[in-house]
């Protein structure tokens, strides 16, 4: 028997196991390791603070999401020993592998910014919404909020779902308006980027949307520390807050660092087209766990897994991998009041306006605020559980297409 070990049963790990289980030769056995036995629909975290989703809509037991005939182990990972081709679990169990897939993602690390976790304000006036607990506790903080300075903040890039902080800000603006306390609230958006987003066309659109909502943008703001209820940057700019909604530094798993497989953020350096480790020819890193220069997002995991599965079958047969991932990502961007945008882009092409997925038809409108995009985002939760994770076909090509996009602005 030959062994494929998959570390992490999140979005990428679950998809890969479901897809490969059907296609691997009979002499391969799959083992999946995750420290949790619950699978979270992470895009749903955005809506929890506003009470739009119930907690059980974003979490399900993981075992039924994985195929029968696959070994599922719930354990912490101690270390990968690449020279021995084995994984050591906490408690000492060893899993030999012929191929290893690292899909353990990234996690928010508030401990990496002095004064954030240890300054006495964590989960009192400082919240994150990239964890299930954080999003739920932010919901009660928002309910109690009576006005003041609400600051949305990103510590550093890259982060999971880079549009989520913008979405949170749009939704908070709408939420505060509904409650009649928007005029008693200063909304501030503090980002290490030079503008609302990185790519020129999307930055203009999204920047204008912040402006129209009266949100003050603090660009190029790289936080050094949190001083009580004030953010302090490396160049000594200070942003006081009554309620801080921060995206802490996102880092890969600690075992990646312990195993000598990570960069300075514990991300695994890979070839950006094949996702094969740049130092070990039998290790792949998928989803957020790798260092490819595109969004850390479920859509990237999805499109890259489409390419990866064919490549992997070639790789274990000793043939060259012919699929090339292009960095394709797309994201719905909630903009409040029942509307949303959609962006679609890859390594080489920035988000552009147009229609998706059918040129000229849509139904989705790229970079435009429309109700249809909002409904698409809500419908996606069903598609995630029932189509995406099980690896059923979704009629969206893995590679980005220029058809339907307008390059003139």
């Amino acid at each position, binding site marked *: 028997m030959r062994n494929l070990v998959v570390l992490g049963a999140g979005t990428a790990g679950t998809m890969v196991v479901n897809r490969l289980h059907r296609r691997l030769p009979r002499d391969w056995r799959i083992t999946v390791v995750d420290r949790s036995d619950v699978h979270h629909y992470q895009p749903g975290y955005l809506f929890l603070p506003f009470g739009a989703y119930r907690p059980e809509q974003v979490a399900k037991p993981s075992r039924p999401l994985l195929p029968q005939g696959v070994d599922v182990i719930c354990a912490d990972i101690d270390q990968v020993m690449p020279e021995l081709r084995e994984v050591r679990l906490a408690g000492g169990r060893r899993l030999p592998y012929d191929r290893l897939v690292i899909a353990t993602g990234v996690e928010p690390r508030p401990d990496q910014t002095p004064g954030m976790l240890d300054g006495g304000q964590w989960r009192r006036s400082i919240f994150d919404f990239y964890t299930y607990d954080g999003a739920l506790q932010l919901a009660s903080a928002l309910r109690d909020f009576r006005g003041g300075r609400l600051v949305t903040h990103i510590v*550093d*890039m*890259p982060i999971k779902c*880079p549009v989520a902080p913008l979405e949170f800000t749009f939704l908070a603006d709408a939420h505060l308006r509904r409650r009649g306390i928007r005029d008693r609230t200063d909304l501030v958006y503090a980002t290490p*980027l*030079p503008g609302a*987003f*990185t*790519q020129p066309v999307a930055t203009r659109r999204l920047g204008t949307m912040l402006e129209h909502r009266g949100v003050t943008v603090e660009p*190029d703001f*790289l936080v*050094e520390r949190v001083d009580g209820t004030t953010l302090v940057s*490396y*160049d000594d700019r200070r942003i006081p807050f009554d309620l801080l909604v921060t995206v802490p530094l996102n880092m890969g798993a600690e075992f990646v660092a312990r195993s000598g497989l990570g*960069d*300075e*953020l514990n991300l695994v*350096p890979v070839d950006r087209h094949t996702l094969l480790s740049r130092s070990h020819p039998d290790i792949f890193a998928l989803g957020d766990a790798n260092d490819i*220069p*595109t*969004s850390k997002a479920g859509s990237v995991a999805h499109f890259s897994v489409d390419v990866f599965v064919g490549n992997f079958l070639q790789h274990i047969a000793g043939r060259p991998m012919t699929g090339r991932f292009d960095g394709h*990502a797309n994201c719905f961007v909630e903009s409040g009041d029942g509307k949303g945008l959609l962006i679609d*882009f890859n390594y080489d092409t920035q988000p552009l306006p147009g229609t998706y997925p059918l040129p000229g038809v849509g139904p989705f409108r790229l970079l435009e605020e429309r109700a249809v995009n909002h409904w698409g985002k809500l419908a996606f939760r069903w598609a995630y559980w029932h189509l995406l994770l099980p690896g059923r076909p979704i009629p969206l090509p893995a590679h980005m297409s220029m058809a339907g996009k307008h390059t003139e602005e």
Partner: protein
Amino acid sequence: MKVATIAGRAVHVDDEGFLTVYGEWDEDLAETLAARIGIELTDAHWKALRFLRDDYRSQGETATLRRVSVVGGIPTRQLFTLFPKKPAKKMAYIAGLPKPRGCV
């Protein structure tokens, strides 16, 4: 890709003036590029620039501020003093490397 004349030499640059060919850069050029954005290079500047040049050669990407601080051992606060306001962008510009990738 455009060709610009900097310090009497023809070099390839992008729309914002970042050099696009690794081998067209040298230390004299760096002095000129730095002067263009109001920076006079000291030993401390050079330590950061040399790290960036070496790291790019092995990694194929322009190092982020976090990488310069964690791997290169230069504190971020110092980088903001040496290259005020936008250190990542300014360092890349002077080191003749692509603008640091906007992580989308």
